[in-house]
């Protein structure tokens, strides 16, 4: 009988009490609902949200390990902890390296089908000498001359898949930035067109809408173009 009671007292510290389970449950519920609300109400977005979600998951894992699994409580299961951290290390390597390697592989050796779709989406008409099927409509080339006097013509109306050739009339390097001075935008994934001294540069109009651009060094040089779908 004395041994029985001795067992229950040691058992308590090692196996947890009702209180520890209640605390564990309350914390877990909170750490589940908070990220859920963050996601559903779109309070934060992008990478910050990704990191927050992962952070809450890892926090939650430690709460459960401590309050539910009672790892590290009581004198005995030290080797369990060692084994757990060993496994955690393996997991980080397996998951991290897989993501890293496959992403690299994907970027550099994209399957033809994916490349073609991407090219179509970005209106690249040829990849590796093959037609992608993008922008096969009649392409019109619009000439826009940029000089210290300004952009001529200052307004260009074009259709999707047309091209614009920017001609730099001065012996300086110009950077034409899309958007206004206070609010830059990107066009077709690029945020600027760089014109080396006296050299023209052609862009394909792969995004419809109304766009403004300005010279980075001389913000009074402004032009705009409209791309109709």
């Amino acid at each position, binding site marked *: 009988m004395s041994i029985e009671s001795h067992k*229950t007292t040691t058992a308590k510290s090692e196996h947890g009490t009702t209180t520890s389970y209640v605390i*564990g449950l309350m914390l*877990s519920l909170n750490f*589940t609902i908070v*990220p859920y609300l963050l*996601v559903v109400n779109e309070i934060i*977005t992008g990478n910050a949200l990704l990191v927050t979600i992962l952070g809450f998951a890892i926090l939650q894992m430690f709460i459960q390990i401590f309050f539910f*699994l009672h790892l590290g409580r009581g004198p005995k299961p030290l080797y369990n902890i060692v*084994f757990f951290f060993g496994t955690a290390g393996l997991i980080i390597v397996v998951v991290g390296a897989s*993501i890293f390697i496959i992403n690299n592989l994907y970027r550099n050796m994209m399957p033809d089908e994916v490349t073609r779709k991407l090219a179509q989406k970005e209106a690249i008409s040829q990849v590796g000498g093959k037609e992608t099927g993008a922008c096969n409509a009649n392409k019109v080339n619009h000439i826009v001359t940029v000089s210290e006097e300004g952009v001529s013509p200052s307004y260009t109306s074009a259709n999707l898949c047309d091209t614009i050739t920017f001609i730099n009339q001065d012996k300086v390097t110009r950077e034409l930035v899309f958007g206004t001075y206070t609010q830059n935008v990107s066009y077709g994934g690029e945020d600027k067109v760089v014109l080396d001294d006296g050299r023209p540069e052609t862009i394909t109009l792969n995004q419809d809408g109304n766009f403004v651009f300005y010279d980075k060094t001389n913000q009074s040089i402004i032009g705009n173009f409209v791309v109709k779908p």
Partner: protein
Amino acid sequence: MTHAELAVDTEHEEAANDRTMFGFWVYLMTDLLMFAVLFAVYAVLKNSTVDGPSGRDIFNPTLALAGTLVLLVSSFTVGIGMIKARLGIKKQALIWFGLTFILGLAFLGITMYEFYEIIHKGYNLGTSAFLSAFFILVGTHGLHIISGLIWLGVIMVYVMKRGLNKHMIRKLTLLSLFWHFLDIVWIFIFSVVYLMAFV
């Protein structure tokens, strides 16, 4: 038995318990590695939707939250059941384990309903690499839940018939470990699969 013999006996018992626990712990960690691989596959193929839907189109975050809460509470009830079992209160222990069983069934129901909803929309395991990875990851977890439920059901019948002896306590301890483990794995499925789909 004399007092000394009894002490030696308990010592043996504890050593045997430790061995069993460690063995089971090794299994759990191996299982965790398997889930890690499935997670890696999912993370890699997450955006490979081809022309199929992305997670944002088909996941129901409220349903996923409901499942998570149910599983969290079941992890709590199995813990309380363990406390009652260690105290030797058979009836209460059975009630808490019964509650765990019902919550586990409810969780399984939610997962099945979600699968049904997705398949009903015309998508399945073969639609895209993303959906293959999704169904395999969540399905593997679901299979673990099913085995856990069968295990729990069998032990409950044993406890009802034979009472709470130390062998039962050992079995129940392993089961509760397993159940908490599934809960932790699910937390990551909830975060990585369901929540991150909406980022």
